[in-house]
């Protein structure tokens, strides 16, 4: 199996790496499964069962950056490194690959792309353009990170930390967040300008929207899981009260 073939096998298998996510080993079994093509290429006398047990042990990282760990581990295993050294390296990769990916992908890139798509939809872009634009733009970065990660890991092996530093994900997260603040401002301005079609008393709606925004800002991350509950509460309250007619001015 050539390095190129191994690289693509690892990239493709990385797409299913979270398939057996569980509370005991987290991504561990997925990492072991994704590394199976390396099993036949590795050097050393370790029995296959011991090798698989080692590679399926507890592991956690951001799914888009796990390919980088796969590449680096594949390089270490095929280079004949001692199992204990590979294990220490595997453990050391977990923390940084989780926090870097969460900060950039989940914390900045994804909400920025979603917000931009929502804004395009509110401004009247056709549904197909909103969805295709979102999927294409988002996945340009996503798939580039996966492909680049495996390649870098295979190239650098144990020294992959230097490659991670060069990638400057915190810098990208910062640039994306700045762009996000601007787009969030535009979205808020559009919501304000449209009044979202609310009939008088418009001030009531704008007051509720502003209060929600401020509560969200003050509460931060800790309140985020309550979004769907809040939505459900609003609809059920409105249904229960039959509140519409007295809020909406007659045509």
């Amino acid at each position, binding site marked *: 199996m050539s390095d190129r073939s191994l690289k693509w096998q690892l990239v493709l298998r990385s797409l299913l790496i979270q398939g057996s996510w569980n509370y*005991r080993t987290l991504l561990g079994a997925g990492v072991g499964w994704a590394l199976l093509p390396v099993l036949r290429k590795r050097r050393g006398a370790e029995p296959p069962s011991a090798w698989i047990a080692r590679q*399926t*042990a507890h592991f956690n990282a951001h799914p888009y950056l796990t390919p980088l760990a796969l590449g680096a581990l594949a390089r270490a295993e095929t280079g004949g490194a001692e199992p204990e050294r590979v294990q220490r390296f595997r453990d050391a990769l977990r923390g940084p690959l989780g926090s870097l990916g969460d900060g950039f992908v989940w914390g900045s890139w994804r909400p920025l792309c979603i917000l931009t798509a929502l804004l395009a939809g509110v401004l009247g872009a056709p*549904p197909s353009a909103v969805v295709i634009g979102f999927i294409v733009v988002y996945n340009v970065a996503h798939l580039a990170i996966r492909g680049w990660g495996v390649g870098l890991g295979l190239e650098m092996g144990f020294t992959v930390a230097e490659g991670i530093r060069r990638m400057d994900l915190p810098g990208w997260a910062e640039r994306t967040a700045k762009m996000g*603040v601007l787009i969030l401002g535009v979205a808020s*301005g559009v919501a*304000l300008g449209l009044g979202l079609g609310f*009939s008088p008393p418009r001030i009531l709606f704008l007051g509720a929207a502003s209060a929600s925004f401020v509560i969200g800002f003050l509460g931060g*991350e800790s309140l985020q899981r309550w979004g769907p509950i809040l939505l459900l509460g609003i609809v059920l309250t409105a249904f229960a009260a039959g509140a519409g007619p007295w809020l909406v001015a007659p045509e």
Partner: protein
Amino acid sequence: MLEPVVVGALLLLGAWVALDGTSFAQVMVSRPLVSGTLAGWILGDAGLGLLVGGLLEAAHLGAVPAGGARIAEPGPAAIPAVVAAISLGGAVGVAAGVAQGALWSVLGGASMVWQRRLNGVVLGPLEELGGSERSLSRRHLACVALDALRGTLLVATGIVVAVMLPASLEQSWGFDGRSTPGILALPGAFAGGALLRRWSTVFRGTRRGAALFAGGLFAGWLLTSAMG
């Protein structure tokens, strides 16, 4: 009444969307904005799908699935939400659909927790997992198949509830078609505030971040004014 082929397509979409959430690829077909629009397209109204999916998306915008955090799963939930919106029709359809979507997203999040516990059972003890290459592949792929089944069941039960929603709900919903999306977008303002808090931490001092946000706000207001 939904045609069997339409129901089949929605269930397949449900399986794909559930897989995309965690198990396979995560190309974001699992965002309600996308799954809602696709469901709307299957049902013949992609615009309504985008509206319902977008409202659900706004309510879930700030959630971060870091480190296996237990959060709601809005992707599959958007599919029955769009079915409900189309079945009831009008503003009440959008409201009832979005409410069902919010409830189903919470149920979906709970089902993911059960699924992850079940994955631990399917994988078995680590000593057994390391038994052979074939054993590992079989167990790993079985977990993926279970996730697809979970998504299908979630969407199937959601569709059953969606088509059973009584038409009499219309009498209790007094908001018109223009006001309804505004009210249902309020949780989006909540999520927007949290996002601003998260993103503003990258600025050293508050002045530059505030200036950027204010500039965007003004540009957005101008944009809508120009559009009439």
